[in-house]
């Protein structure tokens, strides 16, 4: 009996010791991990802040302000010779010049960053390629888009998805075969969804863009309007989560179009009207007029083809 009691007491003591050890380990782990991950100079912190504000300005379509902030960030990165920062801010500056319709300046900055990429960080070539694709796509130079997209290889799923979006849209517009990139984009979606749910994406807008172009191809090109609605609904859901008004406007317009084709007149009118309101808010008067006139035409029974 006594031996048993002693054994029990002994076990309890062991257990207590183990517990204390665990607590000490946990506290040490927590304490050590609270140490800074690495030294970061003040210039880098400020540059990161400038980049953040510049992105906000860009989101608000204030490209002049964004340009100024990106330039300041570029200078800060130059001060501490942070090549990655210089490349990212340099490309962003080129993008702002493109938005401001200054092709010479755009080209100058692209060349500048291209040199840095080639000499120091070839892995960032994709960023430059995406910018070139964007510019070409904006000019409806689909051949250039296809040629750049075909030569770009990247392991980053977000970059891959973005390039594929422009690629399939360009192929479809030139009436070329888009099946392979289309299926590649479809296969990429689950991993992107997973990253999005974990709030782990660098640019979550890519997911809504992917859904939009899948919907675009399915409905507008393949005339599968019902399937198109599914994709556009998903795109709208993500855009709403991201507060992306421009995307929401486009999604609503596309939904209106699909519903119109399916004979769901009331729903189509509702979507067009909502899209018009969004575009009015964004001061995109052309799109607002387009959406409004579609709604009026459907309501009056006219079926003017697009």
């Amino acid at each position, binding site marked *: 009996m006594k031996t048993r009691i002693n054994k029990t007491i002994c076990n309890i003591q062991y257990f207590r010791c183990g517990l204390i050890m665990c607590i000490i380990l946990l506290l040490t*782990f*927590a304490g050590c*991990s*609270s*140490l*800074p*991950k690495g030294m970061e100079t003040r210039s880098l912190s400020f540059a990161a802040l400038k980049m*953040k504000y510049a*992105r906000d300005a*860009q*989101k*608000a*379509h204030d*490209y002049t302000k964004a340009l100024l902030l990106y330039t300041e960030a570029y200078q800060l990165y130059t001060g501490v010779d942070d090549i990655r920062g210089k490349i990212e801010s340099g490309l962003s500056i080129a*993008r702002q010049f*493109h*938005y*401001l*319709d200054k092709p010479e300046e*755009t080209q100058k900055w692209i060349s500048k960053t291209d040199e840095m990429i080639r000499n120091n960080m070839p892995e960032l070539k994709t*960023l430059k390629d995406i*910018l070139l694709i*964007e510019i070409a*796509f*904006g*000019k*409806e*130079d689909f051949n250039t888009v296809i040629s750049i997209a075909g030569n770009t290889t990247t392991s980053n799923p977000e970059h891959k998805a*973005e390039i594929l*979006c*422009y690629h399939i849209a360009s192929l479809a*517009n030139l009436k070329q075969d888009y099946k392979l990139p289309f299926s590649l984009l479809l296969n990429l979606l689950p991993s992107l969804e997973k990253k999005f749910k974990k*709030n*782990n*994406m*660098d*640019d*979550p*807008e*890519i997911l809504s*863009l992917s859904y*939009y*172009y899948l919907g*675009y191809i399915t*409905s*507008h090109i393949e005339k599968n309007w019902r399937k198109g609605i599914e994709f556009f609904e998903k795109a709208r859901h993500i855009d709403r989560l991201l507060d992306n008004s*421009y*995307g929401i406007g*486009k999604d609503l*317009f596309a939904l209106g*179009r*699909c519903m119109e084709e399916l004979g769901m007149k009331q729903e189509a009118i509702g979507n067009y009207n909502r899209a018009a309101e969004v575009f009015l808010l964004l*001061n*995109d*008067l*052309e*799109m607002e007029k*387009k959406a409004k006139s*579609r709604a009026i035409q459907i309501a009056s029974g006219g079926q003017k083809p*697009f």
Partner: protein
Amino acid sequence: MNFKFKHTEKIVGLFILIAIVILIAGMISLAIYKKMFIEGTTFKTKLSSAEGLSTSTVLTFRGYEIGKVKKYSLDEDNNIDAEIFIYKKFREKIVRGCAIYRQVSPISGKTWLLLLYPNQLPLRISPNGTTLSVLLPDESYIPSLDMYDGKKLLEDKIIEKYGDSITILFEDARDFVSNLRQEVRLKQDSFQDFFKNLAQFADSLARNSKILDNVSLMTDPDKGPVFSTLNQFSDISKKLNESVNQLNTLIANYKQPDGIIPKMMQINPEDIDKTMQNVNKNLETLYQMIKSLQDQVPMIAEVLMNTDKTLQALNNNPLLRGGIPKEFKNTNSSKKKRLDMSSETDSTKNTPGTETKKEKDNKNENENK
């Protein structure tokens, strides 16, 4: 297997005894903590408000707790009569010329009392210049900055405000605003006079304009009587004479030293003096505020830096990191190009820099036209 204790009652009794001992020890330590056994002296003071005041409100001096509020009540003049208990150890700090400063934190709303010690000892407070004994007698009155006598001590620079800088800054700002209000009221009266004079001036001008209109009507070459008929010349000359007379009167009015313009500028010199004094006071306050704010800047910067470090540490902690949302890099753009469903090659036209070649060609054509 059954396991029985031999002395259950004794053990239970022992536990109860230990519990009672802990309870008593706790009560004693609480009493000591609350300084219930400390000897001291009571003094009186007057405050303007009891907001945030309680019997646990302490009186501090240079960060030391030297006493606390014993009780307080509303008096006939709607002020607060407060009794302050000063601990024996700090009795000698209650001297002539000291004052109590009630500080209310603008952020937390917490109230605390501060003892303001005079700049020099002994003090010559009596009008005949005799030196009075330094220590204040027991149960005597300590002036507070809420009351006039306390404010007088501050104005005479016998004491100086200290304490929480932000609170002082807010109080100064409040004083500044109230001074400004007074001044505005003062100026309002002056402006009223000014506008009255202006109205008179406007009346005169209107009259003047009437006269000029008459003259112009009369001298009009088309409709005016001068050129229409020479027969009515005598009447016209009479009228003209009248008008000229009126005009003369008006000009004479203008020439007089007690005319309209000086009337307009009639402002009581005392008012001007008062206004200037207030402006001077406000400028002084403003200077103090700016100076105090300037002193605060490095402290604020340091606090921000420390906060930044703390937040970085929290951010790096794996136990908390999950709770901090990741910030999107959003590297590429804000506005991804989305082709319209309305036409096959219609891209985002309103996006700057995305004008299509066709659009540009059309634009150029239009410009050429």
